[in-house]
């Protein structure tokens, strides 16, 4: 069981690394969105510090979402998805592998990039740590929930826009607890409660979402 998950991860990572442009453009999207805000609201350090958790989290969330349509679309186009669905291995486990691989090439680098962008917003050091950690902890849930949306919209006209319409409302709890953790650190409350709730969302998202996504894929293939 674990074997097929780890094999799917390895396969998807290899594919992603042979096409590094996708990965890089997601990261640049994050950087650009985060840099637009100071230009929009002005350079006052106090204001930026206040906006930072929300802006950086929304940026990370949108960047994750942008890479979602690719999650199944390539496999769908070249027929690999049919083969996956016909494999004796449970489709849910292979989707889990794909979700983890998606996180490794989106959530993980976004989290590593976030503290650098946090510096632009004059966040204090402890808040930078919490920002990184909260994005690390929360993005797996985004990849999981996003997989459901990607499965449901597979092969549809205007799939990308529809995908965001379906997925963004479901992302709200992750955004609230993720940005809340950083906020709580800045205001001195401590991020503990937020981070535990974020971990709960991620566990729930990663455990259940792949099966819902697998059901969606089977419907899309019919």
């Amino acid at each position, binding site marked *: 069981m674990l074997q097929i998950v780890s094999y799917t991860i390895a396969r998807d990572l290899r594919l992603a690394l042979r096409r590094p442009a996708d990965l890089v453009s997601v990261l640049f999207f994050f950087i650009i969105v985060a840099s637009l805000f100071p230009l929009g609201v002005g350079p006052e350090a106090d204001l930026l510090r206040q906006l930072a958790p929300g802006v950086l989290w929304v940026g990370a969330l949108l960047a994750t979402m942008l890479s979602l349509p690719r999650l199944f679309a390539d496999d769908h186009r070249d027929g690999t998805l049919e083969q996956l669905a016909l494999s004796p291995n449970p489709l849910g486990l292979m989707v889990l592998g794909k979700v983890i691989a998606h996180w490794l090439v989106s959530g993980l680098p976004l989290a590593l990039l976030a503290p650098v962008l946090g510096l632009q917003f004059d966040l204090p050091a402890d808040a930078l740590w919490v920002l990184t950690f909260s994005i690390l902890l929360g993005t797996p849930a985004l990849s999981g929930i996003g997989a*459901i949306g990607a499965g*449901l*919209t597979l092969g*549809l*006209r*205007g*799939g990308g826009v*529809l995908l965001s*319409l*379906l997925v*963004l*409302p*479901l992302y*709200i*709890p992750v955004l*609230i*607890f993720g940005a*809340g953790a950083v*906020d*709580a650190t800045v205001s001195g409350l401590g991020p503990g409660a937020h981070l535990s*709730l974020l971990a709960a*969302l991620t566990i729930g998202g990663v455990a*259940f979402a792949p099966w*819902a996504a697998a*059901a*969606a894929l089977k*419907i*899309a293939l*019919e």
Partner: protein
Amino acid sequence: MSMINWFKFSAPSTFYPLAGRLIPVFWALFAILALAGLWVGFFVAPTDFQQGEGYRIIFIHVGASWMSMFTYLVMAFWAGMGLAFNTRLSGMMASALAPTGALFAFISLWTGALWGKPMWGAWWVWDARLTSELILLFLYIGFIALTHAIDDTRRADKAGAILALVGVVNVPIIYFSVKWWNTLHQGASVSLTKAPAMASIMLWGMLLCALAMWMYSLAVALMRVRVIILERERHTDWVKELLAKRSQ
């Protein structure tokens, strides 16, 4: 016994005439309840000593909020039935309910804004309940958009069903997280949780209005499901017979 009856009516061809007979009943009940509710709401219920006459919008606002949430549950229930038993009618019911639910969510937000302006001095406040209602509206719109983007009705029903079920699991999580977020950011905003004690006549008015909305939802959903049945089954013999009879 009852199982047999249920499955008999789960066939579109038997459900269609049944729904046709029920619709006038629900419309009549709606008319009576709505008149009674509005009469109580506008003429019997006393003027609120804190909020003046403006509070009377709750007779519509509260019922609409209830209906919007309840309709989502019913929709998810039909969606689950459709996935579990592969019955065609379940998917049709779910897609017939979605626009009504979205409408009530919209009315709830709209009346909430109208109520908010005189009460709190702002059209919109980021109150937990308002925010959740807004997200609920997004969920409805997502459902409608997804089912309309898929041409094959069977796939549309099933995909919509998965989305509705995922949504129904998430609704409590969203509500809880928004509430948590709201208590942390309360600060300057007005506390809305402490509604003034309500006179029992107001409660009666609200109940009557809510029941009227129930009847409206049932009538409209059944009308819509009849249209959907005709549209999807237009190539079957019973629909052709029906249409031939109509056009005579």
